[in-house]
C-alpha cells in the first residue's frame, strides 16, 4: 500500500441499544480497526430516514452503514423490522441518484458482537476504498 491510499469517509448510523453498545464493546476489548467510520447515534435504526443517508452523501461521505439490533432483539420490539422494510426503497432511490449499491450497507450487530462490529467496519472500508471517492459533482444531485 502506498501513502496515497484513498481513505474513504463513512458515516455509521448505530442504534443505541445493540450496535452502539457493540461498538463500545469493541473498544473495551481494544479491537483494532479502520478509523474511517464515524458514528452517529440514533435510539433505533428505525429512526434512520432516507434523507439522513442522502445528507451524508451530500456532505461528502463515500459510504454509509446502518447498524441495528438483530431481528427479534430490537429494544423497541420491532423498530428494526421497519428499517428492514424501508431499506429496499432507500436502495432504489440511491440507485436512481447514481449511488453504487456497495456504498450503503445494512447490518445487525448485537451488544455482544464487538468483533463483528470491527469486522464490518473493516470490510466496509475496503469495499468503499475499492469503489473510490463518491465525487462531489455527483454528490450535488443528491439532495436531502
Amino acid at each position, binding site marked *: 500500500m502506498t501513502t496515497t491510499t484513498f481513505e474513504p469517509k463513512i458515516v455509521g448510523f448505530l442504534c443505541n441499544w445493540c450496535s452502539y453498545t457493540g461498538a463500545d464493546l469493541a473498544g473495551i476489548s481494544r479491537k483494532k480497526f479502520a478509523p474511517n467510520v464515524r458514528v*452517529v447515534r440514533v*435510539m433505533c435504526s428505525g*429512526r434512520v430516514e432516507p434523507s439522513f443517508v442522502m445528507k451524508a452523501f451530500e*456532505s461528502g461521505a463515500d459510504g454509509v452503514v446502518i447498524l441495528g439490533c438483530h431481528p427479534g432483539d430490537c429494544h423497541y*420490539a420491532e423498530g428494526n423490522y*421497519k428499517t428492514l422494510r424501508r431499506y429496499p426503497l432507500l436502495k432504489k432511490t440511491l440507485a436512481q441518484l447514481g449511488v453504487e449499491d456497495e456504498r450503503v450497507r445494512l447490518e445487525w450487530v*448485537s451488544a455482544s458482537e464487538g*468483533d463483528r462490529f470491527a469486522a464490518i467496519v473493516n470490510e466496509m472500508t475496503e469495499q468503499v476504498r475499492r469503489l473510490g471517492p463518491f465525487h462531489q459533482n455527483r454528490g450535488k444531485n443528491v439532495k436531502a
Partner: protein
Amino acid sequence: MEERRIGVYVCHCGSNIADTVDCAQVAEYAKDLPNVVVSRDYKYMCSEPGQNLIKDDIKQNKLNRVVVASCSPRMHEPTFRRALQDAGLNQYFFEMANIREHCSWVHTDRAAATQKAKALVSAAVRRVYHHEPLEAREVPVNPNVLVMGGGVAGIQAAIEVADSGNLVYLVEKEPSIGGHMAMFDKTFPTLDCAACILTPKMTIAGQHPNIKLLSYSEVEDVSGYIGNFKVRIKKKARFIDEDKCTGCGRCQEICPTKVASEFEQGLGQRKAVYKPFPQAVPNKVVIDAVNCRHLKGRAQGKDICRICQKGIPNKSIAGCETGAINFDQKDEILEVDVGNIIVATGFQQFDPSVIYQYGYGHLPNVVTGLQFERISNASGPTNGEILLASGKKPEAVAILHCVGSRDANYHKYCSRVCCMYSLKYSHLLREKLPDADVYQLYIDMRCAGSGYEEFYERLQEEGVNFIRGRAGEITDTAESPEEKDKLIVLVEDTLVRRKRRLPVDMVILSCALKPRADTEKMARTFGLSRKADGFFLEKHPKLDPVATVTDGVFIVGCCQGPKDIPDTVAQASAAAARALALISKGKVEIEAATATIDEEHCAGCKVCIELCPFKAISYDETKKVSRVNEAVCKGCGVCVAACPSGAIKGKHFTDEQIMSEIEGVLV
C-alpha cells in the same frame, strides 16, 4: 434566539485517550468551531476538578451549551448532565463525543485517530447548538418485584426483598424450587451438606407472607418499563388442587406408571404423579401429563386408570383422601404489575455424549458430575453408596476436568467451578471408598476463592492421584490382562511426558455449565442481550455486574455466567439491594427524549399509529390528529422517521440535530 456559547472539554482519560489522540490539538481545533467560547483539554474530566472546570466556565463564561469529548455516553453522560444541572443549566444542553471506545482504544495511527476525534468533536458542537431544554419525567415505582427462577439465587433474592416488606412473585418452571443446588450432595470447600443449608431457605421462601410462590409456571410476556412492568405468567396445569393437596405422597405410592426421574438425572425412577424430591417446596405433587395413563387415555376419549384418585377398591387401597386430584385443571394466565425484575434462571449441564470418545451414553459407568452428586447423595438412588451399574464398588475412579469447557469445539470459557467440585468428588470417594484409587485429570487447577487452595492441599494429603493432562479418550478395548473389563483412560501425564493408560471402573465427567436452552427466548421476553458465550450480558462487566441494558431488569447467578454458590448468593443480594433502592426512592426518572406531534402539521394519516410498537399514539377523532402519550412513548423515533408530513418531532433526536451531526462528522 439566544446567542449560543459553547464550551468544549477534551479528556485525556489518563493515558487512555492521550496515548493515541493529541488532545491538546483537538482542543485547539475546537476553539475555531462556530460558537465555541472555551475549549480545554484535561487529564480526567470525570474527576471533581474536571467537573468543576465545566461548572466554573458555565458561571464565568456564561456557557449555555457543553460538549465533553471523552468516553462513551453509556459511561459518563449522567455524570456530566448532573454537573450541568448543578451549575443551573438544563441537563439536555449537553453532548458527548466518544473519543475513547470509538477512537483511541480502537485505532493505532495517532494522526488518523486525532483527525477522527476532531470530526467527532465538530459533530458534537454542531449538534449541541440545536439542543433544547427538556424536563426529565418522573414516574412512580411499583414496589412489587418479580423473581424469575427458584434456584438458590432466586430464593436468596426473593427472601431479601420480601423481608423488607415488599411483595415478591417468585416464578419457577419446575414443580419445586431448589434448582441445581437441591441435587448436590456436599458443597465445597466446607463440605456442609447442600440440603442442610438450602432446605431451610426453601421453606422460608415457601411460607413467607410476602412471597407469592408460583411453581410450575412460566413468564410469557413482559411489557412496560422500569418501575412499571406488566408481566403475563402462565401457571401450568398441575392437575392437583394445591389447596387440598397435603403432599402426603399416597398417590405417588399407588400410581402404576414409572418413568426416569429428572431430579435423579435418569439414575432413579419416579411416578407419573410425583414430587420431584421429598423436601420439595411447595410440598405438593404434580401429574406429568405426558406419561399419566389417564390423561393419555383422555386424548383418545378413553377413561382409564385414575388409581391415584379412586385407589384400587377391590384391593381396598384408597386413593387421594383430600380429593386434590383434578384432571380437568387447565393452564391459568395471571397478569401482575411489578417495578423491578430479577432474572435468576441458572444454567444447564453440558451434555457430554457429543464428545463421543469419552464414552458417555455408550460405555457403562461413565457418569456426569450431576449424576455423581446423586450417586453420592444419601437421599439418592443408591442411598449414598458409590456403586457401579453392576452394583459392585469401584476399585479405581477417574475424574476428568474441562469436559466441554476450555474447548474450542464446544465452549471456550472456563466453567470456574469444575476444579473445585472435582476436588469435592475426590474427597467423597476417598472418604467412602478408602481403598479405591482416585485419579484427577486436570489441565490447570483453578482454586481461586476463600479456602479453595487449602482444600486442594487437603486433597493432596488425602492421597488423590493428580495427573496434569486432559484425557484423549476412554475405551473398553483392553490391551493387557489388567485392562480386561475396565474402562481405560488415555492421557498424557504432561509432567513426565508419558502417554499413560489408566484402567478404572468409573469415570466422572466434570461437565461445563452452559447457558440454558431457553436463554434466547428469555432474552427476548426480558429485553436482555447475550454475550458471545451465550450467557446474559451485564450492563458493565466490572462496575455494574447485575444490571442490564434494560433498566429495572437484573441478572444474578449462573444465567450471567458460571459461578459458585457464594458468588451467586452475593449477586442475588446485590440485585435485591438495587431493586430496594429504587423502591425506597419511590419514583424513577425516565428519558425525556420522546416524540411529540405538531397538530398544525399532522394530516391525521395514522401511519404512526400503525408503526408505534408501544401503542403510544392515539387518534383524536374530534381534531382529526394523532397524539403521543409521552408516558408510554419510549422515544425510538420510528414514527418520526415515517411521518409523511414531518409533523412528528423526536425530542433530543430532531432532524436538524442529526443532520448537523452528520455534517460534523464529515468535516
